[in-house]
């Protein structure tokens, strides 16, 4: 078994650019460098043509009816901001109520917080212990003031896939717009804006083996035609919805990445589910007191989020430092609070501090999975030997009965 270190198993944070994507991008830096907005010469026409081709490919990947429904942005955070702020600004006379849920990405939650200051009323729905929103809760939360529901497709920490199709039926019936931050799921799990009645969707290239700094917002053009107020003023690019010179090489790469997902996504997901289950079994079968966070049935193929009881997540990451993963431990953030996503699921703070997220992707191999599983098993044992909590647990002490000195 041979693996090359370090191993990247953090494919929810970003993904490497697929060499096939890079190859298609390269000419657009040097030879075909035109500004896609230049209407008067061939350099501009070539760039525009490449951008429109990418638009078509991306539209196809998400089931959009027209390539004109794709608005390019700098990434998903911008797409989320544009969707929520743009819709609110346009429709606020109609109503000021927005519905979202508690495990959304900060790009949604913090945007909602901002909109609350501007007069929006936001309902944050809770989730069940697997991280799923109950569509019935969405239905109940809708009032005659509701203009928008924003529910992510798949969660970045726990991989839970939301019942978007059911939610889409409700929002369509009630005449409310539905936005989805679909960054993590697109290409990996079936996503179709038509089938799901999604009116706005945020996506980004770098989560699907494309380049960073290149995202898109899907904006439905018919039934209903979604309107929004641009959040960036300037040359009126992207049909007035997002000014700024287009990142042509990035967009070309985004298009190619989408095409590869179209062609290979299904097979890739099947392979990743196999790898993930191999990793899970090889760890869980050998390490007691290991818990899976999130949903078993509705989960991103490459996501495995485990809590190793009595072992702190950051210490774990340090112990396996040749493997790039992430943790819901507070120590990985400046806030000293463990993951708000795990908390929302009702995972106790102790177990939230002990969580490790493995994110498998296109370039991970079975050998890497086996290597990581063995390493994790070894290091959990080592860290538990150092853990007073593990010793107390083994002595039969109920840790909940201990008077801890919170600090």
């Amino acid at each position, binding site marked *: 078994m041979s693996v090359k270190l370090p191993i990247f198993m953090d494919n929810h944070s970003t993904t490497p650019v697929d060499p096939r994507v890079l190859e298609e991008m390269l000419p657009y830096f040097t030879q075909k460098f035109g500004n896609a907005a230049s209407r008067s010469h061939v350099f501009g026409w070539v760039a525009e043509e490449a951008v429109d081709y990418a638009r078509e490919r991306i539209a196809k990947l998400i089931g959009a009816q027209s390539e004109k429904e794709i608005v390019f942005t700098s990434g998903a955070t911008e797409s989320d901001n544009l969707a929520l702020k743009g819709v609110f600004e346009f429709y606020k006379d109609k109503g000021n109520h927005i519905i979202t849920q508690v495990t959304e990405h900060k790009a949604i939650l913090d945007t909602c917080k901002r909109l609350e200051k501007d007069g929006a009323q936001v309902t944050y729905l809770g989730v069940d212990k697997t991280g799923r929103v109950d569509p019935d809760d969405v239905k109940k939360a809708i009032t005659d003031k509701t203009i928008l529901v924003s529910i992510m497709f798949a969660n970045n920490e726990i991989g839970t896939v939301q019942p978007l199709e059911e939610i889409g039926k409700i929002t369509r019936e009630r005449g409310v717009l539905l936005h989805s931050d679909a960054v993590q799921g697109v290409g990996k799990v079936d996503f179709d804006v038509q089938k799901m009645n999604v009116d706005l969707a945020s996506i980004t290239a770098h989560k699907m083996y494309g380049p960073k700094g290149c995202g898109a917002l899907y904006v439905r053009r018919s039934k209903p035609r979604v309107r929004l107020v641009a959040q960036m003023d300037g040359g009126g690019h992207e049909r007035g919805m997002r000014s700024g010179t287009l990142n042509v090489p990035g967009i070309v790469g985004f298009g190619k990445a989408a095409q590869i997902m179209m062609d290979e996504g299904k097979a890739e997901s099947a392979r990743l589910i196999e790898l993930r289950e191999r990793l899970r079994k090889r760890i869980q079968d050998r390490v007691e007191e290991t818990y899976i966070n999130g949903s078993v049935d509705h989960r991103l193929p490459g996501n495995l989020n485990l809590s190793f009881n*009595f*072992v*702190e*997540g*950051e*210490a774990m990451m*340090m*112990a396996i430092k040749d493997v790039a993963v992430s943790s819901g*431990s*507070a*120590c*990985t953030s*400046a806030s*000293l609070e*463990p993951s708000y996503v795990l908390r929302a699921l009702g995972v*106790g*703070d*102790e177990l939230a*501090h002990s969580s490790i997220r493995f994110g498998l992707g296109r370039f991970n191999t079975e050998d890497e999975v086996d290597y990581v599983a063995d390493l994790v098993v070894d290091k959990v044992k080592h860290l538990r*030997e*150092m*853990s*007073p*909590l*593990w*010793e107390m647990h083994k002595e039969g002490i109920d*840790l909940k009965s201990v008077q*801890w*000195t*919170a*600090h």
Partner: protein
Amino acid sequence: MAYSEKVIDHAEHPRNVGTLDKDDPSVGTGLVGAPACGDVMRLQIKVNDQGVIEDAKFKTFGCGSAIASSSLATEWIKGKSIDEAEKIKNVDIVQELNLPPVKIHCSVLAEDAIKSAIADFRKKREARSAK
């Protein structure tokens, strides 16, 4: 976050990991922190009749900096009298390990662990002499 070399060294090769018999009258045990906060340190000292710390052991549930802080604490207090050991301040640990601001609480916890172990030992000693 990048760790200092000293933190990495202690976290990868922790000194004095282990358990002393907490029922031994010459052993003082300090257990500080809380699982919900992500840090629990247990620091134990074995003190001889001259009041010198002969041995020190720790176990820590916490991040690398917490492990390093407690490992360093045991190294420092070994061979010191309990009065000297009590004077160790968290800032000394911060300086030695080059801890960033977000990790200062790890050093505070280590100082608390030393103090708590000494207090436990003193309580035991007083209980003994009262008999």
